């Protein structure tokens, strides 16, 4: 099979690293060649964070370039707009409908673009908006936004939900397994 490319984008502290860890485990267990690339270091400081995940028979580059992402999972609306040109023509972008103001907006140096997802749709992107924060709270913690979004992505990757559940059991701390399983199911079924 040809290589599938996924981008996970969000704001430092939103838990995108755990999401990519889970995804990497699921894909490795399916015997795909997998590459996951994330640049951390400043990621805890509220900056924009991006993770690339690629899988297939043989994957060379760990990077997802312009026009290459089959899926973009965005934890925040502005970040969806920031990385939209990475989306493959015909690719899907799944966006958590949260708004987190970046510092230039907080200081008043810039404004948060209005109706940003409408703009993306008008450009021709297939945007799926979901209120992952509300679903995460329903699961038991606002921190489970990452697993809710992975639940939604799981619908499209053709890997049975049980395999994801098995990976959740080995990826998250025992105390949070049930919460995350619930979050996954809520995202998957939403």
């Amino acid at each position, binding site marked *: 099979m040809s290589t599938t490319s996924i981008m996970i984008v969000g704001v430092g502290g939103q838990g995108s690293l755990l999401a990519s860890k889970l995804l*990497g485990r699921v894909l490795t267990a399916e015997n795909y060649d*997998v*590459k996951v690339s994330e*640049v951390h270091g400043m990621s805890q400081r509220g900056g924009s964070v991006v993770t690339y995940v690629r899988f297939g028979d043989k994957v*060379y*580059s*760990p990077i997802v370039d312009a026009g290459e992402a089959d899926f973009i999972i965005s934890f925040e609306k502005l970040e969806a707009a920031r990385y*939209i040109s990475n989306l493959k023509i015909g690719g899907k972008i799944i966006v958590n409908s949260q708004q987190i103001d970046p510092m*230039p907006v907080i200081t008043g140096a810039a404004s948060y673009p209005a109706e940003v997802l409408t703009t993306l749709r008008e450009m021709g992107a297939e945007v799926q908006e979901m209120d992952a924060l509300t679903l995460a709270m329903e699961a038991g913690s606002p921190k489970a936004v990452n697993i809710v979004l992975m639940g939604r992505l799981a619908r499209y990757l053709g890997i049975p939900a049980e395999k994801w559940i098995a990976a959740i059991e080995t990826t998250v701390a025992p105390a949070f397994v049930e919460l995350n399983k619930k979050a996954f199911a809520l995202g998957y079924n939403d």
Partner: protein
Amino acid sequence: MKKLLIGNEALARGFYEGGIGVVSSYPGTPSTEITEYLSTYRDIYSEWAPNEKVAAEVAFGASLGGKRSVCAMKHVGLNVAADPVFTMSYTGVNAGMVLCTADDPAMHSSQNEQDSRHYAIAAKLPMLEPADSGEAYAMAKASFALSEQFDTLFMIRMTTRIAHSQSIVEIGEREEVADKEYKKQPEKYIMMPAYAKRKHPVVEERTKALTAYAETCPFNRVEDGADHSLGIITSGTCYQYVKEVFGDTVPVLKLGMVNPLPPQMIRDFAEKVDRLVVVEELDGIIESFVQSLGLPVEGKNLFSPIGEYSQSIVARAFGKADTPALAPVEGVPGRPPMMCAGCPHRGIYYILAKHKITVIGDIGCYTLGAQPPLNAVDSVLCMGASVSGLHGFNKARGAEAERKSVAVIGDSTFMHSGITGLVDIAYNQSNSTVIILDNSITGMTGHQQNPTTGMDIHGDPSGKIDLEALCHAIGIRRVAVVDPYDLAACEKVLKEELAAEEPSVIISRRPCVLLKSVKKLPSLRVDADACRGCKACMGLGCPAISFRDKKAVIDETLCVGCGVCRQKCAFGAIG
């Protein structure tokens, strides 16, 4: 067993299986995880050293003592370690020793974009460079035996993209290696002129032997392709981009040993292709070498020496069309990293900015004080440069500057290389004021212990350097401690110490708010009726505070109740 590992974890696994006995490092992105993962193997000795020079010397001592050893650092850390490293090239090793240096093309979290391969050339040391985690693992595992075979420190160069990308590694078992006997050998290990003069020719001969090895080294290989109108020489992460673009269509010479380079292998490769191109990030080092062989070659005429590459950059350089894509959205505000809600650095920076103090800054989370809205920092150069830089600034500008300028440095950075600057201040008596931001952890690299925290790399109790006692011992009589959450106290202490007619140190002490041991207070709230919308609280640059409908709003999921904004509110609206 197959595992998905980041490059740094793959290195750690390879070193472990290769029989490592000792690792000593100083944290630095993107190298930190090498040592963090090694520290999880409790049957070896691992530590955080105060700086990279110390780490390299500890690892050298361990090699001398007969155990295979590693030190890992970021590229700029190698500048700090360079002194012992250059002479280790002369002494060689007893047990195998490896130095990992992690470069940061595109400067994801660094102050410059230097190419560590220059060091390998300058110090006449062999260097390996992996192209994915599998290769990082294999190189790490093989490197100790190579180090012993050629009697030299081996270097492994990582880049951020390899260090922090995960790919699949087939891991194995640890090889138990007997310690080497320690024999006193003055002519090998004492580098004074009489012995060093005899060692330099040995180094030159060793380079010849290593060059011969490079010709057959399994990490250098040719992957043939049907179309010989083009041949590409590449290494590291660039190999992946080349393969992504060309697949198996054109011949590729993939170099895993990047110093010394294999002249015959390159000549043979060049002969088979019509056009020869080197694809390498940062400087044109391989390209220059190929040129020195008298071969026509291209490289930096097609590629920039700046930043990271990718498959599209490679494709474009060879005239291929871009992948169709949507146009970027105009006017998306940037999202730079910032000090966290409740960060203890914020309060002291606010006071410094309020009084328009010149701040000679340093390397750490607190470099973020340079960002809007605080804009509190004037200069950041390298680890430790705040303290010595302030001294020079004050010597240049005199008494007026001394009353309006400070150095700002973190606890870990002060241990790393701030102490010597403070010695200079005490010795040469400038009336300088140094602020140590003691947040009880090495923050920016993701929470590593350091000599001031009282815990070792495993989080177990260890020696603890007493900052106040240390400053006193150096000869600083005025040492004040202040809580950075208390703005009035910060302001008072700052005024007093700037006015004092002698050197002084202010220790701004409060643990990093991200530490699990730090108890978070309930979120504060804005009383919308009391808020006048004056934006005084916004001037702190706290990510938990935003402005909606002409009133300040506090995000309860981010606020940790530090109370700094409450002190700024003249209308009592925050509580």
